[in-house]
Every structure is written in structure tokens, then in C-alpha cells.
């Protein structure tokens, strides 16, 4: 059944966003606000992953209910960012690149929630729709956070 597909895709993108947020938090441990808030926001995605795995079971999709904790994929992102800005990236620029990355990933997750909600509505899957309505606002706030942090940091980084 197709809603299962949407759940599977969302499970993948939320897991990825979790790893991204945890890695961004680790990488900017000296920036206390980024460190703490990125971890809090990763907690939301971890919760979504667990809930998606639970609802996936009812739709016949086997998904890992354990949210990711290791930044394995993120190693590659870190590499890519380093390549972009040279071997020892300026921390300010790195932060901008990381926040931009968080925003884009969260935007992808947001679209996936939109798709899931549409599928749930079409298939009259009430529980699925309720899940989307509960979780999607969290994703939108994750995006808004990345955007707001970018606004706050960008001027100084890019004009100094």
C-alpha cells in the first residue's frame, strides 16, 4: 500500500535529519546555543522516527524504531563542507554551511510530511493523518530555527 511508501521515505529523511542535527551540535560545541538547541531539535526527529516505525508496523512496513545516534553519514557531510571551504574552514563559514544544510534537510522532511498527510487523507488513514498533523509543526520549527540562526550569524560572518 502506498502510504507505507511515504512512511518509509519519511523514516529515512527524519533519520538523516537527526544525524545532521547531532553532528552540527557536535561540531559547534563551543557555540552554546547551537550546541544545545540542535540537540533538542534532534530529539524531536528521534521521536518522529520512533513514532513512524510504530505506525509503519500497522501498514506492513518494517522500520527500525531506534533513532540514529552515530554521525556516520555526517562524516561525509563534514568532508563535503571541508572540501567546499578548504582544509581548515573558518568556523563562521562552516556554521553558515551547516545551518543551510539543516534548513534544506528539514525542508525535505517537511515536504515528506506534506506527502504523507495527503496520502493519509486520500486513503482515510486517520491515525496517519493525526501523526502528520502532530509532527509536521516540529519540522517547520526546525526550519525556522535554522533560518533564524542564519539571519543572526550571516551579517557578521560575511562582512568581516
Amino acid at each position, binding site marked *: 500500500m502506498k502510504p507505507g511508501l511515504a512512511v518509509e521515505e519519511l523514516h529515512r529523511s527524519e533519520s538523516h535529519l537527526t544525524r545532521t542535527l547531532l553532528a552540527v551540535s557536535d561540531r559547534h560545541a563551543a557555540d552554546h*546555543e547551537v550546541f*544545545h538547541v540542535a*540537540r*533538542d531539535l534532534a530529539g524531536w526527529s528521534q521521536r518522529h522516527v520512533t513514532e513512524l516505525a510504530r505506525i509503519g508496523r500497522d501498514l506492513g512496513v518494517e522500520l527500525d524504531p531506534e533513532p540514529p545516534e552515530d554521525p556516520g553519514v555526517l562524516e561525509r557531510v563534514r568532508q563535503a563542507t571541508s572540501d567546499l571551504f578548504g582544509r581548515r574552514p573558518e568556523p563562521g563559514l562552516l556554521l553558515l554551511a551547516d545551518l543551510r544544510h539543516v534548513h534544506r534537510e528539514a525542508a525535505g522532511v517537511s515536504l515528506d510530511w506534506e506527502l504523507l498527510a495527503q496520502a493519509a487523507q486520500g486513503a482515510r488513514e486517520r491515525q496517519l493523518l493525526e501523526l502528520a498533523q502532530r509532527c509536521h509543526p516540529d519540522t517547520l520549527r526546525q526550519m525556522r*530555527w535554522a533560518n533564524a540562526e542564519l539571519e543572526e550569524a550571516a551579517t557578521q560572518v560575511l562582512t568581516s
Partner: protein
Amino acid sequence: MLKAAEYVPPHELPGQEHPFQLITGRTLYQFHTRTKTARAPQLQAAAADVWVEMSASDAADRGLGEGDLLEVCTARGRVEARLRVSGIRPGVLFLPFHYGWWDSPDGQRAANELTPTDWDRVSKQPIF
């Protein structure tokens, strides 16, 4: 304008190792780190050194009395202070943050060393 925000659990909660919540604050007689007020003899005499406040029930449970020397520590540091039993809520300790090293180089009394660097993400208010 008031905006509603959801509850977010604290990043550190009391546990086995650190059973109390610590709050820091001021006394009427001193300002910040006392670089001015400690030079006014009357103000300095009114509040000359750091103290720690604890509720009567917490002190009684531990057999502690007014004026006992306590060590207050968190994951980040420690302070030695005399106990004042006060009307504070059980489970909470209070330290004034005015006292540091400039006039007491050997003392362990800077409460600001104990608190985490963490603030509300919207208002930027420190959490301690």
C-alpha cells in the same frame, strides 16, 4: 506581546551525584562582582563573603547547622561556603554570585563557575 512556547525539559536535572537544584542571585549590599561595592566599607561589612542557603528540612536531614562549611559542586566547579538555613524551597540551594578571586585569590567561591552556559533560545535569558 506574549507568545506561547512548548515545555522543553532542562538539559541538566538533579540526580544521584548532584541531588540539588542550584540557583544563583544577588544580595542587596553588593553589585555584580563587587569591584565598586566591596570598596565601600559599610557595604563590604554587610555582606563580606559567600554563603549557601538550604531549607531547614534538607539541613536537618543531613545533620547540618547554621554556619557549617559546605562544599557545593556541579560538573563544572565547586564553591566552599558557610550554611545559612533559610526559607528556600526544599531541594534547592542558593549561592550569591558576587564573590570571586580579585580580592581573595585562593578562595573557591565563584558561583558563576558552577552554572552551565545555556540560555532560552528565544528570549536569550540564561537558564539559571
